[in-house]
């Protein structure tokens, strides 16, 4: 399985944020997207996740176990926001996403408790999500990646609020995912501790898209 991006470019408002970016990531590989603030890392990930239509170029997934119509259906997206309801308990949140996302063919999501244990918060699943500290919330958001199987993980600054122990835990999760034949694409400013990951440097602001006016 391979995720292939060809000649991607994307606009925000009138500005071309990046232009003609191509890359390929094969199963078991990780890609780390780097660049200064505002360079367009989040924008690239949102394009990959199908949340922002690219200005040009395309994304596709080759030779997947289960052919998907749109590539984003094979992706997990972990954005800045955790996609959890503060009022529901951690367990209810995870159970909902497990049921709602479902497993894609070719893999198997963990049970809710097991996933919570994997991120080091095993006993804490009956607390309302809103009660957790910033870092704990982020970890639960990562547990969401584990409860439903998706071959591709798109991670936007996954370790922003995490302490050192949690960062280690996280790189363990990613390594495990890669060895199960997954793909991980992460935008980050901090070292992720992924040995042998490919790197993509965003330079930011590719100029006005068109001098339309």
């Amino acid at each position, binding site marked *: 399985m391979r995720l292939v991006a060809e000649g991607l470019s994307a606009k*925000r408002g009138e500005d071309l944020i990046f232009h003609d970016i191509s890359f390929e990531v094969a199963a078991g590989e990780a890609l780390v997207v780097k660049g200064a603030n505002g360079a367009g890392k989040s924008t690239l990930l*949102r394009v990959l*996740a*199908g*949340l*922002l239509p690219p200005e040009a170029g395309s994304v596709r997934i080759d030779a997947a176990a289960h052919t*998907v*119509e749109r590539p*984003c*259906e094979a*992706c997990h*997206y972990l*954005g*800045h*926001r*955790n*996609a*959890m*309801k*503060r*009022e*529901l308990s951690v367990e*209810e949140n995870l*159970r*909902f*996403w497990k*049921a*709602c*996302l479902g497993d894609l063919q070719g893999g198997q999501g963990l049970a809710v408790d097991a996933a919570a244990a994997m991120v080091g918060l095993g006993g804490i699943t009956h607390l309302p999500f809103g009660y957790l500290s910033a870092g704990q919330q982020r970890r639960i958001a990562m547990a969401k990646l584990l409860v439903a199987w998706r071959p591709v993980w798109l991670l936007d600054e996954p370790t922003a609020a995490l302490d050192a122990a949690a960062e280690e835990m996280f790189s363990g999760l990613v390594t495990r995912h890669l060895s199960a034949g997954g793909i991980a694409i992460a935008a980050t400013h901090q070292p992720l501790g992924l040995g042998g990951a490919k790197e993509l440097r965003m330079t930011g602001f590719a100029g006005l898209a068109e001098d339309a006016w």
Partner: protein
Amino acid sequence: MIALLVRDLRLSVRAGGGALIGVLFFMTVVAVIPFGVGPDLNLLSRIGPAILWIGALLASLLGLDRLFQAEREDGSLDLLLMQETPLVLIVFVKCLAHWIATGLPLVLASPLLGLFMNMDEMAIGATTLTLLAGTPAITFIGAAGAAIAVALPRGGLLVSILVLPLAIPVLIFGVSAVHAAIEDPAPFLPPFLILVALNLFFAVVGPVAAAGALRLSSD
């Protein structure tokens, strides 16, 4: 989809946003009316159906604006947009959950409030029936408005302009169906059937429009 339905229902119970509060609001509105127009029972029974309908409309509208905004703010909307499940279906289920949590209790409470407004049995029955047929339409229209509100960060104005005028026909046909039921000469069925038709129409158009707006809104 069941999971989404269950989650939304649970949320509406949990945060107190759902059944109890909607009905309470409805009751409070109705209780306030006699303070304004005076305790004249004849008058109350005449304006009763309109008051019940307005109360129901307001109760439905008050919580509706957060339907997608809450999902967007915590990032859930992004994930829902990425799924294989058609977005229209997701929107439909969310509307359904919202209606079950807030619309249905209103319908169930309306006979009681009808008694308080001194309406006769016929009027109470007709009001309940029309509310049952009409409140889903309000939810579906509102969903389209809520989705557009999510789309344009400055689209608030547009929503209000969009939703209320669309809801007015529902309100008018609802109230006039009740009146037809009470006063003999006018037939009840035509306005009621129009109401049902409006409901079906909006049940399709609302989610489709909402889904479109949500897709456009993601950035």
